[in-house]
């Protein structure tokens, strides 16, 4: 199924957020200052960027998608 432009952005936001959350999760399995720094400087920014990207297009809207003419077999 072809994705709408907004859905492609949503997919990118989803991957970014899940990558950030995965890093956060892994850092919780290790009690060490490096884990703390990785949490704060890699995991959290990835989550923040992903969420901000999603919110940006959700609130401000994506560029108007071109209106596609209905194909013949779609017209009843």
């Amino acid at each position, binding site marked *: 199924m072809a994705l709408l432009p907004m859905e492609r952005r949503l997919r990118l936001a989803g991957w970014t957020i899940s990558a950030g959350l995965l890093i*956060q999760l892994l850092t919780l399995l290790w009690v060490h200052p*490096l884990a703390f720094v990785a949490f704060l400087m890699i995991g959290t920014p990835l989550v923040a960027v992903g969420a901000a990207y999603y919110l940006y297009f959700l609130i401000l809207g994506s560029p108007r998608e071109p209106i596609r003419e209905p194909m013949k077999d779609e017209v009843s």
Partner: protein
Amino acid sequence: MLNTTTLEILFIALAIYLSHLLALRPELTRARGGKIVGFLALCVLPAAASWTGFSEQMDRSKQTQFCLSCHIMSDHGRSLYRDDLSYLPAAHFQNNRIPREVVCYTCHTTYTLYGPLQSKLEGLRHLYVQYLGTPPKPAEIKLYSPYNNRECLHCHDGSRSFEEASGHSDPDVLQQIKSNEVSCLACHDQVHDVGSLADATFWKEPQ
């Protein structure tokens, strides 16, 4: 029974699952319910999970295990077991005067993460020196600023044993101690002293 950390990890795992699901199948958001799930999965849950993780990381950073996880601090950790109670850290640690699981943080409350911005930057510098620079010898490690009596007084202030101790009984001296004009370490000067650990004997904690 699940402990708090396990619950936090499960919560973050749930957030990962939902954001991953939407990354794989973004078309789920076409329905009204999907839009709500999308907002929860890509905004609310990640924010909540990050806050949960941050809170857990902050708690962990107070733990003795956290501080001693850097090899350079291992001698300071060993000094807690010195079999000589004239040393302040050993006396406090071995007699449970401070919680053992947060022993470093209890006496160094403004160190690195918990201090002002300058201290936080120093904490990052420690990591840089540890992994990319040339770490000093443990005996060469010094505090950046003189030890503040506040760290002692937040437990000792007002206690009878402190106020009536022979060295503190003079009201002027007591006032100078409380106002940080005279350092506690001016008299109680046996602290970690890791340079002398090679000749020390150590207390074995009963199992």
